[in-house]
């Protein structure tokens, strides 16, 4: 007597669906390990198809580069550009071996001379319809596909001059999407899933840490200022800081839609944020880029020195990279949660 005859019909039906799902999950892995099926990615209005995982990639943009490193793909990176600060901790030695084409904008020829099979760009400002390095079409003409960070094309209008206007709020989902796309293109889906799961877990842990403070804390994110005492660039409602604050249940005292509007200290002082988050960066274009200059200003200006957040020293120093839509936005979530928790702001 076979085993089958003992199983009632209803039970057989109950087993059928999970069995099917399992097959569906296993099937693509089998297929990819055989390196047969081409990978197709929808990216920023373009469809990219890869017969094989690329062997050489040039990444224009620090966050794009760091995502590749995190996925263990450093040996495939044939060149990098647009560096805003030091590479992610722990990747210094790996990064030192990778040719850096330019600290800032690389030239079109320096990118293509690396013979990349893929170019990734963090910002359309560099590679996009009006990119200073080139347009995706220029690269396509040479048979090089361009992958654009979804964080810079979804919910963002880059038609005007400059660094674009965010039309919808930034969401970490866009960064997870980029990680997933890269993992699929390079056929390392398991590493991608693991990385995304880790980042999500960190996000959730930080959120839980200060979950009890709901709605009681407000903040302002100060990136820099064009002149030391002039109206500062602060975070509006749609950038990465807004996502950080929304995740943690912290209210942004700035209510404009622009990503980095200039708002007067008058408005900020009267809005009385519980916490001031000040950007720390290696860039030295404006005197206010320097975190010590920022702190000195806050403590010496006739008005800001009177703000309760300054008097009680509730100033959080945060790496400016965490204030931009990157994988490091998670660092920002953790750092701010830590600071709020430490200051015991619930009391």
């Amino acid at each position, binding site marked *: 007597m076979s085993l089958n005859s003992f199983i009632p019909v209803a039970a057989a039906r109950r087993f059928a669906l999970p069995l099917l799902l399992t097959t569906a999950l296993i099937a693509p892995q089998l297929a990819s390990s055989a390196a047969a099926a081409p990978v197709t990615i929808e990216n920023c209005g373009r469809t990219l198809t890869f017969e094989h995982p690329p062997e050489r990639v040039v990444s224009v943009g620090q966050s794009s580069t760091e995502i590749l490193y995190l996925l263990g793909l450093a040996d495939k990176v044939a060149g990098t550009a647009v560096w805003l600060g030091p590479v992610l901790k722990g990747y210094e030695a790996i990064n030192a071996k990778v040719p850096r084409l330019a600290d800032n904008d690389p030239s079109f020829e320096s990118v293509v001379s690396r013979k990349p099979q893929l170019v990734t760009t963090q910002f359309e400002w560099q590679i996009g319809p009006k990119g200073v390095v080139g347009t995706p079409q220029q690269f396509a003409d040479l048979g090089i596909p361009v992958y654009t960070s979804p964080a810079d094309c979804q919910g963002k209008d880059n038609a005007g001059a400059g*660094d674009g206007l965010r039309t919808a709020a930034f969401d970490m989902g866009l960064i997870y999407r980029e990680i997933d796309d890269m993992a699929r293109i390079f056929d390392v889906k398991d590493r991608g899933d693991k990385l995304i799961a880790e980042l999500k877990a960190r996000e959730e842990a930080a959120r839980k840490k200060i979950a009890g403070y709901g709605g009681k804390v407000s903040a302002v994110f100060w990136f820099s200022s064009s002149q030391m005492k002039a*109206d500062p660039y602060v975070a509006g409602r749609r950038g990465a800081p807004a996502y950080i604050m929304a995740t943690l249940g912290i209210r942004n005292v700035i209510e404009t839609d622009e990503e980095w509007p200039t708002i007067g200290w008058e408005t900020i002082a009267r809005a009385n944020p519980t916490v001031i988050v000040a950007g720390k960066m290696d860039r030295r274009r404006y005197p206010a880029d320097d975190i010590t200059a920022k702190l000195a200003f806050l403590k010496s200006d006739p008005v800001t020195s009177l703000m309760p957040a300054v008097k009680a020293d509730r100033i959080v120093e945060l790496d400016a990279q965490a204030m931009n839509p990157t994988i490091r936005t998670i660092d920002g979530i953790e750092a701010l949660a830590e600071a709020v928790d430490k200051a015991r702001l619930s009391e």
Partner: protein
Amino acid sequence: MTPALILRRAGAGALALALLILAVAAGAALGETAIPLSTVAATVAQKLWGAATSVDAIDAGIVWNYRIARALMAAACGMALAVSGAVLQSLLRNPLADPYLLGISAGASTGAVSVAVLGLGGGALSLTSGALAGALLAFALVAFLAWRAGRGAASVILAGIAGSQLFNALTSFVVAKAATADQARGILFWLLGNLSGTRWPDVTVAVPAALIGTAVCVAHARALDAFAFGTDSAASLGVPVRRVQVTLVLAAAAMTAVMVGFVGSIGFVGLVVPHVARMFVGVRHGALLPASAVAGAVFMIAADVLSRVVVQGQVLPIGVMTALVGAPIFAVILVHRRIDR
């Protein structure tokens, strides 16, 4: 002087003073956030006469250290630009002359951009001092060119155009070579004028600079009147032509350079305000220069107040405001003058 004339002058002076005080009061009362008039009045009473009040320290700080300092900076700037414009229009006998004709704005931009983008001075130089240095350098070049090109108003104008073009090209070169979008935006904001960084220490330099520069120009009012009929006529009237020309151009250049260093280049004030003033008080410089000074100050404060309140939650560059208001006024004057004649 007849009693009637004294009375008229006193009346004009009182009117000018009242307008200025009214403008500064508006600058103190209006801003990005709403502060009640009573708080504004109490703050001023406390700071000026030591009156005991219970206003919030932050509100008081905003009114006194931000808004009033800013209004006085705007006044100094408007005064300096308008007086410089009036002097240059007469001296060069060109109704289109304005202080930036001397290459000062272009030079200041180059100086500021070099500091901001190239990191010239290694952080020791501020944007203000970089701009001032650039302005003086550009003016020196224009002055040298004009001097080598020979006498006459046309050579100054042509030298100014050449110098401005050169320095504008240098600015574009620096920006295109090194700046990212973020920087370019910050620099653009500064180029269009920005009063938001004004604090009292700046005011204590800018206001005396504007007053001294204006006084020097007013002291040469009669000589300027004589220039209306050309340098030869002026010389025949006993005016030391060369000395007066050099003194006045230097006064205008120095005043403008200081202002551009503090707040960036703000267009239209130096061009338009003297024409408006001429409509009201005529062409005699004894009246025209003081009238330009007051009108420039009031116009600039008004433009600054508008720039803060016209778009909710956002501050427009003041240069945008002066051009938006100034250009239509200029158009009206043009049309009216034609009808009058």
